[in-house]
């Protein structure tokens, strides 16, 4: 295992080393992150990276293949545009966690702030706590699972992402509706909860999705433009 002291050696050195992946060195520990930005972004190898502390903006952005564990809280845009792999945040995540993600699994063991999963395009996100307002705004595909409560305007202008919430939803955004939980949804949820290490029963969740009324232009609305 390689240990990297970020305070002593700097971000560019760290990310260059992680990008120049050598198959003998797949396990990394990063000490003293101190809220630094862009830690472990753009990884494209089956690395296992543990960050010992809290991170700033865009940790593990654009991740492919790697597993990144943040042993603290993450700043805005954690795992933004993730392609594959796994990102686990042991504390809370700030705004727009997992935004625009195309694949992989993002697990947040605490709470996530506003706009979690905004414009998600295939990523799976499991939040053990609550999520903030405007989460899953314009979310296109993938699954957002929330064990706690969701803030206002959940799933506004949603496309085909599936939203599963166990707690209260403060309000649903435009064109987001509650949908029936069918057996295939229970199965998807069971698998995600298990992979996210979440102790919860899939039957306790409600599913929300798009009413699909915004997909096509209605001539009745022409006067609004």
């Amino acid at each position: 295992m390689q240990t990297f002291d970020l305070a002593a050696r700097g971000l560019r050195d760290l990310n260059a080393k992680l990008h120049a992946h050598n198959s003998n060195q797949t396990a990394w520990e990063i000490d003293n992150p101190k809220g630094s930005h862009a830690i472990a972004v753009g990884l494209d190898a089956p690395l296992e990276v543990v960050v010992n502390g809290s991170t700033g903006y865009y940790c593990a952005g654009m991740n492919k293949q790697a597993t990144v564990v943040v042993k603290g809280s993450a700043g805005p845009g954690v795992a933004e545009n993730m392609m594959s792999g796994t990102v686990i945040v042991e504390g809370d995540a700030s705004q727009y966690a997992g935004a625009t993600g195309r694949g992989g699994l993002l697990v947040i063991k605490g709470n996530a702030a506003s706009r979690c999963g905004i414009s998600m395009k295939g990523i799976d996100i499991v939040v053990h706590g609550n999520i903030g307002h405007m989460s899953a705004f314009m979310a296109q595909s993938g699954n957002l699972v929330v064990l706690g409560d969701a803030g206002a305007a959940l799933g506004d202008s949603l496309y085909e992402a599936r939203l599963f919430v166990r707690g209260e939803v403060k309000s649903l955004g435009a064109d987001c509706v509650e949908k029936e939980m069918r057996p295939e949804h229970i199965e998807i949820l069971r698998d995600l909860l298990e992979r996210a290490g979440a102790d919860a029963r899939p039957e306790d969740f409600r599913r929300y999705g798009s009413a699909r009324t915004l997909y096509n232009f209605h001539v009745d609305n022409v006067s609004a433009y």
Partner: protein
Amino acid sequence: MCGIVGLFLKNRSLEPRLGAMLTDMLVTMTDRGPDSAGIAIYGADDGRGKITLQSPDPDQDFAALDAELGRVLGCDVDMQVKDSHAVLGLPPERLSEARAKLAELRPGARVMSAGEAIEIYKEVGLPKDVAARFDLPGMSGSHGIGHTRMATESAVTTLGAHPFSTGADQCLVHNGSLSNHNSLRRQLARDGMTFETENDTEVAAAYLSNKLQNGSNLGEALEASLNDLDGFFTFVVGTKYGFGVVRDPIACKPAVMAETDQYVAFGSEYRALVNLPGIDTARVWEPEPATVYFWNH
């Protein structure tokens, strides 16, 4: 962008270190806004009133100003000059009279703050340079607020830098931009508030001062701002004994807070908080949108 830091001490033993801690936090936020920097420090209330004055020509403006002001007011005035700023000490009941006299005696100088505890220092430049010019790390106090600016709504000038103070012992810093500041400025001007700049943040400060003058407490004034101010804002405000935080309902301007039994701290980013004592065991959270937080001594 813009970076905000704030520190409200609960424990008097940290007071001698307030300036040093706040400066360290502010310098960490430099890359959020390198245009200008400022800091408001609430020092010990020694029974004297204080006016912090800024001048583009300090040698000229501050020469013998204490004696001159003392003579026209007929009271004892002391003065401490720090670079482009001077802090004038005088009996607190003479503050408004002194401000009027200063405008006559030194028309080129501007009042940064007035009150019994507050001192505001702000200039164009990097936080580390501004802090060094005024020896901010050497200052003690009970609470303080710092700001590093990336200008969007008005020019990069000393007067456009934050904090803004529009009432005795009051100050406000802002990350964001207001869209209804022109109409609100006209409205507040009709109510007798005066403005030094075209800056949106000054309007927010004057709005809160106006509410406080009309009997609201800090919490009520901040609640009202959520209805009347349109735009993006994370505000941190200070009063003689209080420290408050509010974010607009969209809350896209970042904010992180930490609380221990020794202090309440605010940072635009967690990076600003990492060197505070006991941060590893502090309660760290993001203030909720459209929610008022405030603490009082």
